[in-house]
């Protein structure tokens, strides 16, 4: 599982309320969530998200279990999320919707830096600097490869 794109740098402890605010949750329209991605933090992010890799600080995705957060990221076109640590529900949710999450000790980030990751080989590069990525369990890899838990499930029926 590989991916690449320009970096969008975020700080630590980005909670799911910031990723998608509670006031946008009452719809099933995924494009609404994508359109308001990280809006209260920085309204310019949504315009830069397609094809980009989010490089966040520690504890990415803390807070509520709302899956709309990872769906918003994926629907907005984000190709992967890199962080030194993730909140566990966010991490699980990301895999369940087929959004690659790369836990790696990335220590610096500049917006637009070139990010390349290879989850099979277990590394991520930010502006040429290479960091080891924490390996995923076999089950997580299988779900991610299938494109998420729904297609994974369908493929096993």
């Amino acid at each position, binding site marked *: 599982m590989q991916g690449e794109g320009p970096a969008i740098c975020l700080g630590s402890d980005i909670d799911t309320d910031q990723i998608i605010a509670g006031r946008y949750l009452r719809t099933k329209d995924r494009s609404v969530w994508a359109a308001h991605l990280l809006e209260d933090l920085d309204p310019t992010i949504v315009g830069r998200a397609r094809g980009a890799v989010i490089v966040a600080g520690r504890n990415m995705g803390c807070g509520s279990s709302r899956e709309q957060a990872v769906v918003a990221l994926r629907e907005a076109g984000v190709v992967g999320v890199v962080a030194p640590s993730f909140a566990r529900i966010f991490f699980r949710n990301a895999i369940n919707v087929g959004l690659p999450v790369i836990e790696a000790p990335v220590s610096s980030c500049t917006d637009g830096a070139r990010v390349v990751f290879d989850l099979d080989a277990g590394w991520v590069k930010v502006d040429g600097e290479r960091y080891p990525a924490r390996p995923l369990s076999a089950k997580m890899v299988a779900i991610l490869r299938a494109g998420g*838990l729904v297609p994974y499930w369908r493929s096993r029926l």
Partner: protein
Amino acid sequence: MSTLSERILGAPAGTYVDREVDLAFAHDGTGVLAREALRDMGVENLPHPERLRLIFDHIIPANTGMTAALQTELRGYARSSGIALTDAGGGICHQVMSEGPVRPGMVVVGADSHSCTLGAFGAFATGVGATDMAAIWASGATWFRVPETIAVRLRGDLAGAAEPKDIALTYVSKLGMEGATYRALEFVGDGAAGISMDGRLTLCNMAVETGAKTGMFYADAATVGYLAEHGASVSPWIPEDCRYEREVDIDLSGIVPLVAVPHRVDTIREVEAVAGTQIDQVFVGTCTNGRYEDLARFAEIVRGKKVAVRTLVIPASRAVLARAIATGVLAEIVDAGCMVAPPGCGPCLGAHMGVLGEGEVCLSTANRNFKNRMGVGGEIYLSSAATAAASALAGEIAVPEVA
């Protein structure tokens, strides 16, 4: 020699297990998405609908036509699938579950991050997202990584005006917002026995604010007694010697009333240090502190007086509301000038009914004070119900009197 998580999940920390789920619940928010995912999975029949619950709490009663339509659809699905539904007004999912079927040693999964609350019964209780919940509906099972455990060792007894919420804020600040990510917390030590079930639910509720997968108490005499009142007979669990990853020690007798200040739950101050901070709204409720003991303590302080600021009180469940009516606590709250709204999450997640305006400050008994959570530009301080009561009377953050 195992931790509670290892005993319940039946494997050592660090291993991945597939495990049958004894109870699983979702609310009006996550339930809608789980239903969608289930449909996308192509699953028709649920193997164990009797283990599942749907509880409407997040936006009740519906605030818009869109919300109403989503709830109507989910209500219909509950009926056709055989999933038991607690409709709007029954209470917050975690509270409703705490009044019913949870037993020590169960594996309980909720599609809500505060599902760790139910670890208060000595169950392995944790939160997942909606698609994970759909897979649990479809199969009755899910996977877990058995967590390492951090012991929170409680010593002595609370004194003065301190409450279980102040213990929760203490351990959250000691561990930090990611201090226990992927870990379980076990609340142990001689101080644990003296904490009521309501207090234990408050402590376990906030485990996720440290990143923890769950927070747990051993089922002891208090648990057995509480469940007996709810018609269940269970045995206590005896702790084994086990290896904790680390221990955090808390002397309960030294705890004073605390607040978490905007916008981090792990940034706490003594109430005394921020006394006099102007507030625009007080909110007493949520799955953290909307229980009967909270309402009773709040009423004890405001009894016969008038609040000086907009104050919203939301019982965590219909059972809590009924008890507060029966004991006269609710009348005292209303007489003091507070608004009372139907059991549910209320403005906790900033969706309706008490949303903050730009620059407004709220003192809340909830568990999260993230920036903009209760409304864009609003600021949230978190405290116990006692601190909320004293502050409501003063119109500014104020230190509660000793009970």
